[in-house]
């Protein structure tokens, strides 16, 4: 009797197959979700494109700038745009395009750098203040309240005049190093400090409020119950909850910083000449605004466009991070 070792041919049994038509899309992480929503916002994508371009240009400026930002020829002063000088020259014969590019470098460096420090210190201070409460919280909040009741330009001018005063006495041993660094960076360091000191408030307040509102929630209690210490509680359980609003605040903080830097430079207490800044360029152009408005227009438009892009991106980011928001 022959034994068949092969199984009989399957009759009518179909292997269970994955449904060919997907009724649900694969799960996406929160960040992917946010990014997808961001991509749908066309204006914001244009803004991101412009900012990226600006950053790339700012980084490459020392290499690609056609002229020197400080040296000009008085014989070529106040030229109209021409193939040799695409955007013309200023009253000292310096190439306008070159100065615009260096100005972008100054604005972006200072603004983004200051916001990074704001992020680090504002989040830390806000978390500690909100988490522990007590006298430290009281002290920090009174300081924040007091600074909040002053216009940031006023605080910036006060601190800047102090910094310039101290840093000009460079022979004192304590600050000599900082003063040299400040001089070498064309006054950037001072502006940087001022921007940080005027912008940490918002982030600190935001983080504190958020921490206070969630620190009594069940998941925090649960984490505490399984033995999470305070540092771990803050880092792993509270931090992710504050990051979304903080990210938005920091994005809006960048145009705020750029604008404040330009204002300070406009007043002549920001970046030290000959280092160009859009604010300085606008101030210098005022004298000849009747006869040569291009000098006002170039930095003015550059400043407006940059602030516009950052504001749009901030708006889009806020919408994208908050899926529950009604459209």
């Amino acid at each position, binding site marked *: 009797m022959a034994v068949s070792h092969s199984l009989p041919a399957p009759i009518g049994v179909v292997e269970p197959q994955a449904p060919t038509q997907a009724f649900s899309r694969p799960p996406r992480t929160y960040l992917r979700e946010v990014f997808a929503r961001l991509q749908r916002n066309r204006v914001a994508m244009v803004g991101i494109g412009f900012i990226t371009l600006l950053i790339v240009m700012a980084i490459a400026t020392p290499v690609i700038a056609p002229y020197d930002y400080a040296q000009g020829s008085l014989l070529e002063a106040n030229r109209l745009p021409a193939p040799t000088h695409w955007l013309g020259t200023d009253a000292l014969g310096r190439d306008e395009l070159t100065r615009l590019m260096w100005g972008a470098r100054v604005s972006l460096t200072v603004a983004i750098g200051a916001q990074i420090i704001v992020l680090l210190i504002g989040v830390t201070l806000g978390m500690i203040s909100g988490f522990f409460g007590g006298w430290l919280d009281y002290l920090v909040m009174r300081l924040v309240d007091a600074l909040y009741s002053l216009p940031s330009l006023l605080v910036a001018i006060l601190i800047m005049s102090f910094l310039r005063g101290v840093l000009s006495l460079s022979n004192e041993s304590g600050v000599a190093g900082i003063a040299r660094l400040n001089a070498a960076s064309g006054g950037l360091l001072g502006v940087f400090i001022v921007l940080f000191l005027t912008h940490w408030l918002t982030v600190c307040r935001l983080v504190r409020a958020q921490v206070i509102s969630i620190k009594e929630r069940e998941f925090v209690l649960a984490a505490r119950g399984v033995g999470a210490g305070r540092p771990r509680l803050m880092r792993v359980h509270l931090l992710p909850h504050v990051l979304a609003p903080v990210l938005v605040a920091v994005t809006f903080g960048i145009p705020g910083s750029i604008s404040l830097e330009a204002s300070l430079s*406009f007043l002549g207490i920001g970046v030290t000449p000959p280092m160009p800044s859009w604010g300085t360029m606008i101030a210098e152009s005022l004298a000849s605004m009747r006869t040569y408005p291009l000098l006002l227009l170039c930095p003015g438009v550059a400043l407006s466009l940059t602030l516009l892009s950052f504001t749009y991106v901030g708006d889009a980011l806020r919408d994208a991070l908050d899926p529950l928001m009604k459209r």
Partner: protein
Amino acid sequence: MRTYLIRRLLTFIPSMLVVYTLVFGIIHATPGNPWDTGNKPFPPQVLLNLEAKYHVNDPLWKQYVDYLVGIVTRFDFGPSFKRGDTANEVIARFLPVSVQLGLLAFALAFVAGVLLGSLSAVRHNTWIDRLAMFGAVFGISTPSYVFITVLIVVVAIQLRWVPTGGWGGLFDTRVIIPVLALALAPTAAIARYTRASILEVLGMDYIRTARAKGLRNWVVLSRHSLPNALIPVVTVAGVALADLITGSFFVEAIYQVPGIGRYFVTTVQDKDYPVLMAVTLMYATIIWFTNFFVDVLYSVLDPRVRLT
């Protein structure tokens, strides 16, 4: 509510004390003195007299306490270091100009902002909405010193409609350019807030009820949506008001308006510390009270918000 008001009002004292201490500290930590005239110094006897008159050689704690006592008891900010008058007189003379200009700009910004925002919300996602909101972001992104310069070049120099600078009271053509320049950013901010707020309100159930009752669209919008939608706008309007009545250095300096905003930067550069202290404390007081009133007003307008 009453305990809240009292408790909140009491925080005014430590807040202003912090401001006073910060400014005092920065002033005295900044190197150099107000009579440092560079290569043409005052005669030593004059310097001694000046220093004696202004008590700058007293110990720091004594200056700190004396000055504070003078402000609190006599409301006396002391004589200006650089001008013939006192700090109080400087404020009394220049603040009213800024306040008038600021109030006018605020009225314009509020009306224009609410109109623009409402229009945007009602015509949501049409080209009107997009254009208005682009204008609003543009308004927020354009620094006042750029906008006012463009206004001067176009309106005053090219078209010759108004003079290029100066101040002649609220009923003078010279008020137009500074008011427009001051109103730009707050108009934009108020328009954005109004739009978002109306859009939120329009999704509420009671709006659907109102429509279901067959009310005309205009009534739904003007009587049912707008009053509720304007409550959150109070917050941003309050900030704008405080900002406007304290004067803007840029607008006042560029258009030569004799307001207090123009003075601030000068006092820092001149090291005219009594005026600096007076201006700073005055700004802080105005902004503090504006914030306070906004919070109270908010809870009055929206009974769901309880102040605790």
